[in-house]
């Protein structure tokens, strides 16, 4: 019996590869297994190789695995591309339709199952995915009934007959595999899972759910990979709460419309990826200058320009910290797990309103789209804090000669009282031009300095819960591994392997990218002989930020990957050993 295995299904895009993986994973998630998936896909809808790799485990897992136990192939290309990932003794199940072959020098077991033929006999070749799932069940020794609940839900609308046919396809797939293999094969049977209920979701789902829970009632956005799921979720859900989503003409409109709505008092967000964020840069400056709260999600993907739209990368870091001309206070936060993505989405809204600033919620493709098992979220941790927003509808008379409210009053903490349009005696002016306390344009030097200082002062006392996730068991470590966003899982998996080789390894995962938690990182770096910064980009952006804020350049080393794929645990282990 085993505690974890990896399964992959591949074929041509548009062939239902995703849904095959989805049904397989959902059924196992229901039984209490921990799932973690990685989709390999291209920026096209039909055609081209795609695959969905799913890791099943009896304990929590947040990384793809180095190797593969089972490969389901709907075409020979899937085998050619992926067979070398299979472990010694791994299984390939191919559709007999294409006469699958595997290289002779590999020790893998090939089973040719007539996926398409069985499905066609049952009425439609579309059900070949179900036949493949059935064959998988037979390998794993899972009863076919495990899928019943999921199949019923998916096909409920199409009627009992369709459910029955699909279940039959699964059964036939299992039977045929057993005939071919002569019964169960060794080494693939999973230990029983804990049976606990968990969600099966992507990071974008968690962010979107966080926004709904955190009081977002309006969103303006433009579709883009890998961010669109956030928008799609809110399009479905916001109307239940009176809210709505506008799909704008471009990201400039998305961002400025969100600014308009936030100014008028509604928690409004927008989400995009690198190209969209590039277009939003001027608007981010407007939010900073006018002190209108704003939350923007950046789901990083391969850049520059259109880059690798469907691939993993973490190369927007510098742009998010420094982007927009001039100088504004800004917060860039980077959740490292799906759970954190939920809580951070709520917190981003609070920080934006409390400090009256733009907040960038940074994720990466693997965190945004990697579907995984997630423990139920804690409702009691959801709170809505609106800072100095005046909740009254009528304010006292002001002493300004025009009756204007001092929206940009210079205060000790830099944060001014905020009112929204419609309030009596709250009239004020808002402008991206430098302005005085009532918002009227002003080029007076002393005023400029006062207002600039006031804005930048706001972040001096930023309260941020857990800016760095630390695993630091060693007072004197050989290596401090540093990362952000989705690399957390792979680093956590690499550490025990490095420790098994006698290395003492600490881990710091940075959740607050800007303002940078320099003190916390300094104490971690002081305790390490080597600092290895693991990041999916070509220039070592996080390492540079670390050097800039903490110094100790001689200790800091780069561990980079920018080929579009997430790190494998073995890559981190191997490169760490090379570097120390």
């Amino acid at each position, binding site marked *: 019996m085993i505690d974890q295995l990896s399964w992959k299904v591949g074929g041509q895009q548009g062939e239902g590869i995703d849904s095959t993986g989805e049904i397989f994973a959902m059924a196992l998630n*229901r039984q209490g297994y921990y799932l973690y998936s990685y989709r390999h896909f291209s920026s096209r809808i039909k055609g081209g190789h795609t695959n969905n790799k799913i890791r099943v485990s009896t304990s929590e897992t947040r990384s793809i695995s180095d190797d593969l136990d089972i490969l389901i192939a709907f075409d020979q290309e899937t085998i050619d591309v992926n067979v070398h990932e299979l472990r010694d003794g791994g299984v390939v199940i191919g559709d007999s339709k294409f006469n699958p072959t595997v290289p002779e020098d590999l020790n893998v077991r090939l089973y040719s199952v007539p996926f398409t033929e069985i499905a066609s006999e049952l009425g439609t070749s579309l059900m070949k995915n179900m036949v493949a799932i059935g064959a998988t069940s037979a390998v794993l020794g899972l009863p076919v009934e495990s899928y019943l609940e999921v199949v019923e839900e998916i096909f409920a609308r199409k009627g009992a007959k369709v459910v029955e046919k699909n279940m039959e396809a699964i059964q036939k797939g299992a039977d045929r595999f057993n005939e071919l293999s002569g019964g169960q094969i060794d080494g693939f049977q999973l230990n029983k899972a804990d049976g606990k*209920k*968990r*969600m*099966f*979701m992507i990071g974008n789902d968690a962010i979107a*759910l966080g926004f709904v*829970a955190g009081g977002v*009632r*309006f969103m*303006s956005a433009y579709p883009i990979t890998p961010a669109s799921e956030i928008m799609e979720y809110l399009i479905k859900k916001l*109307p*239940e*709460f*009176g*809210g*709505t989503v*506008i799909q*704008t*003409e*471009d990201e*400039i*409109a998305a961002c*400025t*419309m*969100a*600014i*308009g*709505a*936030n*100014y*008028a*008092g*509604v928690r*409004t967000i927008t989400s995009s990826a690198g190209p969209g964020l590039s277009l939003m840069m*001027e*608007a981010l400056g*407007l939010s900073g200058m*006018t002190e209108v709260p704003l939350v923007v999600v950046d789901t990083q993907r391969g850049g520059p320009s259109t880059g690798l739209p469907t691939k993993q990368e973490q190369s927007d870091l510098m742009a998010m910290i420094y982007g927009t001309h001039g100088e504004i206070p800004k917060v860039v936060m980077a959740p490292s797990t799906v759970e954190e993505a939920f809580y951070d989405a709520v917190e981003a809204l609070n920080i934006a309103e409390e400090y009256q600033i733009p907040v960038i919620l940074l994720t990466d493709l693997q965190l945004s789209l990697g579907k995984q098992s997630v423990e*139920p*979220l804690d*409702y009691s941790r*959801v709170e809505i804090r609106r800072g100095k927003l005046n909740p009254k509808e009528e304010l006292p008379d002001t002493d300004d*000669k*025009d009756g204007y409210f001092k929206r940009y009053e210079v205060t000790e903490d830099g944060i001014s009282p905020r009112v*929204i*349009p*419609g*309030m009596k*005696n*709250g*009239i*004020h*002016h*808002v*402008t*991206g*031009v430098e302005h005085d306390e009532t*918002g009227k*344009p002003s080029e007076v030097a002393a005023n400029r300095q006062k207002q600039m200082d006031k804005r930048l002062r706001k972040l001096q006392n930023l309260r941020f819960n857990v800016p760095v996730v630390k695993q630091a068991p060693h007072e004197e470590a050989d290596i401090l591994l540093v990362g952000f966003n989705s690399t957390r899982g792979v680093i956590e998996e690499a550490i025990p392997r490095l420790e098994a080789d006698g290395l003492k390894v600490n881990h710091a995962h940075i959740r607050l990218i800007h303002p940078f938690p320099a003190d916390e990182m300094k104490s971690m770096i002081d305790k390490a002989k080597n600092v290895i910064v693991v990041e999916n980009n070509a220039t070592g952006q996080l390492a540079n930020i670390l050097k800039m804020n903490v110094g100790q350049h001689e200790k800091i080393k780069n561990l980079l990957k920018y080929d579009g794929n997430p790190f494998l645990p073995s890559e981190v282990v191997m490169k760490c050993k090379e570097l120390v």
Partner: protein
Amino acid sequence: MATFKDFRNSIKPNWCPGCGDFSVQAAIQRAAANVGLEPDDLAVVSGIGCSGRISGYIKSYGFHGIHGRSLPIAQGVKMANRDLTVIASGGDGDGFAIGMGHTVHAIRRNIDITYIVMDNQIYGLTKGQTSPRSDVGFKTKSTPEGSVESAIGVMELALTAGATFVAQSFSTDLKELTSIIEAGINHKGFSLINVFSPCVTYNKVNTYDWFKEHLVSLSTIEDYDSSNRMMAMQTLMENKGLVKGIIYQDKVKPSYQDLAHGYSKEALAKVDLNLPEEKFNQLMAEFM
């Protein structure tokens, strides 16, 4: 009841003496009072350029945004608080060059706001460059040999983009302009009002006298029917776009807010943000 004086503040506009924008400002202030608004019911959102300064010169909530983006900001304000009257405004460069994408989409989206363009066919604040409204042959700093690009027929364009309210006026006709702005505010949907607002410093061709000579008032056209889109288009084309009055109005089509599925009747800005625990658990269960 507020009067137009209540929409004034003490700021002296930095426009050149004789600029058409003074009258546009006065017309907005009068129209706001005439339709029964109080200053705190109104939000004026403006772009960048000479005319963009207008949000600071009217006593109301004012948002002076970035170049070309007054419309998305104004639409966001209105979506957040449907009880507010929202006026977006700016120049022809703001609305028809850098912001043209937003203009066309705001027209077809039909959110209930009023967009007033102060059209002087030139870039004033940057000291005299060509605009998308400049005529062919118009000499400016950026077109010393005369503009070779066609001027955009914005009224015609608005009609084809699905506009529900299209009007044009002239800044000296304070009375007519005021009543058109009132009609725009009262219109349930997006209203586009293009106002010829001459630049006395940089446009020596399209002057007050030039407009007086060339503009045709729709009130002088017999049986002009502003609910007839075909007639509107034909009249515009016959007169090279140089007409004034309400060119087209569709009083039937509902606004975006009335069509948006599930959109709250109560101003969103006043809606309770808290999600009940039971609902939260239900949302989580959908992922299980």
